[in-house]
């Protein structure tokens, strides 16, 4: 349990890192690390079973390797600038991140956990990660950082999903991962198209459609 909680705390720290970092490449890599860390969770929670191993392996592949690799490739290919280009500055984002994280810890107390999960920080971590993903989504300009935010959001959901992975059929889990992959994949294609149409992946430029 101690180990699990330290992993979860590491996840939260990674959240803060992404919120505060100005380097795009670093962010992608650290998110990959976060994905890899999360891949450990199923085994930590449910022990080494076929189900949890498969889940861990899948998560590791997708979250830790394939998607970050795609993102890095995209960064290199389209030769975009390596900064995060925040709408809201880093310090305010960090403060907001701290506040929401604290808020999720408070909120999580309202949700009664079953006895097996009492010790863990699963729910607050999951929520904090989701909100960090959201924060990234609403405070950064670049299209690629949006994908990154989405990835963190999905990571948060994954943390929560782990709690249930035993109770739920494997098929749904696979579906989640697949959807994530396909989603990011389609986003990748679109980003590719965007980079052909526009010169950068800055979403600020993608605001011609407005009233």
């Amino acid at each position, binding site marked *: 349990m101690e180990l699990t909680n330290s992993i979860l705390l590491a996840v939260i720290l990674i959240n803060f890192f992404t919120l505060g970092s100005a380097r795009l490449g670093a962010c992608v890599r650290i998110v990959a690390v976060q994905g890899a860390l999360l891949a450990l969770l199923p085994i930590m929670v449910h022990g080494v079973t076929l189900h949890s191993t498969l889940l861990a392996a899948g998560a590791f592949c997708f979250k830790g390797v394939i998607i970050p690799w795609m993102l890095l490739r995209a960064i290199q290919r389209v030769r975009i600038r390596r900064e995060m280009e925040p709408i809201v500055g880093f310090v305010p984002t960090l403060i907001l991140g701290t506040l929401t994280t604290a808020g999720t810890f408070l909120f999580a107390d*309202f*949700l*009664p*956990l*079953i006895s097996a999960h009492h010790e863990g920080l699963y729910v607050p971590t999951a929520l904090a990660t*989701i909100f960090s993903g*959201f924060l990234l*989504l609403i405070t950064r300009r670049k*299209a690629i950082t*949006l994908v990154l935010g*989405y990835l963190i*959001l*999905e990571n*948060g*959901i994954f943390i*929560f*999903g782990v*709690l*249930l992975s035993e*109770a*739920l*059929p494997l*098929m*749904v889990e696979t*579906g*989640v991962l697949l*959807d994530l992959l*396909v*989603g990011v994949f*389609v*986003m990748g294609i*679109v980003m590719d*198209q*965007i980079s052909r*149409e*526009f010169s950068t992946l800055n*979403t600020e430029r*993608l*605001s*011609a*459609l407005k*009233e």
Partner: protein
Amino acid sequence: MLVFLIVFPLIIALCSLVIPWYQVRSWLLPIVSAVHLLLSGMLVLGRFPVTGDWIGLDALSQLVLVVTSVLFFGCAVYAVGYLDLRRDRGNQTMVPCLLIFLAVMTLAIAARHLGLLWVAVEATTIASAPLIYFNRNRLSIEATWKYLMICSVGIALAMLGILFIAYAALGGGTPVSLQFDTLLAQAPQLSKPWLHAGFVFLLVGFGTKMGLAPLHSWKPDAYGEAPGMIGALLAGGLTSVAFLGVLRGVQLMAAAGDGGMARQALLGMGLLSLALAAVFMVRQPDIKRLLAYSSVEHMGLLAIGVGIGGVAAFAAMLHLVNNALTKGCLFLAAGNVQRAYTSKNLAEVRGAIGALPVSGTLFLAAFLAITGSPPFGPFLSEFTMLRGIFGGEHYVIGMLVLVLLAMVFIGMGATVLTSTQGAPSATTAGFRDRWLLCISPLGFILLVLILGLYIPEPLREALQRAADLLEVHP
């Protein structure tokens, strides 16, 4: 049978990738959708009763299935004419994507398992993204990007909601299953806080897809940039499917004895949608963005109907049908108008009836229909909904709805009438009304007209059964 209904379009979609002939590929659409319509008609009429752990049809999904199928059939017929005009863009992406879209929509409608439902809805997002991007220009890619981003985030939240519900089962000490019937059966034992939070996430998730304000922000962009028929499918079909997802949540809450809370949430969001749509329609110079806001408005009405319950829920079911068909007509006619003027902005679009007698008239008629003018169908559903609202003694809400409807009428009327009436401005030579592009909207508006004058008994019963499903009392 139901499996066939889902798999068959998928197979044809694969086939269409290898068929080399352009026209044949186009014609696959109406053929497949005709078969789909026929089969779903047979399914619904009860020749092949379907229940199952993973997929099945209850009254609600039967309704949505038929509506979606009819809408898709109309759009498929239209698509043949449309794709013929757009040989420059080709149909290699359009046809398979449309067929996949049909398949996954059917899957989402038929899903009896929340996980499966979620997967299917996410798949609809992905299948429709290339459709919105059909025009391949800067604006359409921006629209696609926004659509994809916002809907993906929304749907991720829906995932979280489903997980919460599963955890609620875990917390309630019952065996965890996301199979819907099982969930309903054990609803009273679910852990309340988790269930409530789950419902909120589900509502936000599917509500984003459905386009309830303030989650609707992708709609004007996506509907505005997609071709007319895609707009029709999204506004009439996909929103209904997403609404079905929301209704599943409401069913679950009602079964757990917390229907009131779910209703209040829906009512609040419905009113907000109606209000924001009414505000945003004022002086809207873009006819397709206008239609998008109209879609928001009607999603709001559906939510209000279900939120009030009783007669209003019945009316909401009827409105679902009417809204889908009328939106079909509106978007297809608007698509024709846009093609004729190569613009969808009021600055250029004037006097559409003069330039396109059939499409222009259809656009105007559908406008009257969608704003609830008798003798079209939406009048009946809106009127019945008002009966429900006033009958439940929600006088303030009733008056508010009426005021907002008036505002919507003014806002929408200003744009639609300016675009259709008067002397036509210069149009691109060569585009005239052609029957393949007019027959579907004409069919839709006739259906809506018939629904306004005559509601067949089987339909009434089906609507009633669907509404009753929302009223589960443990």
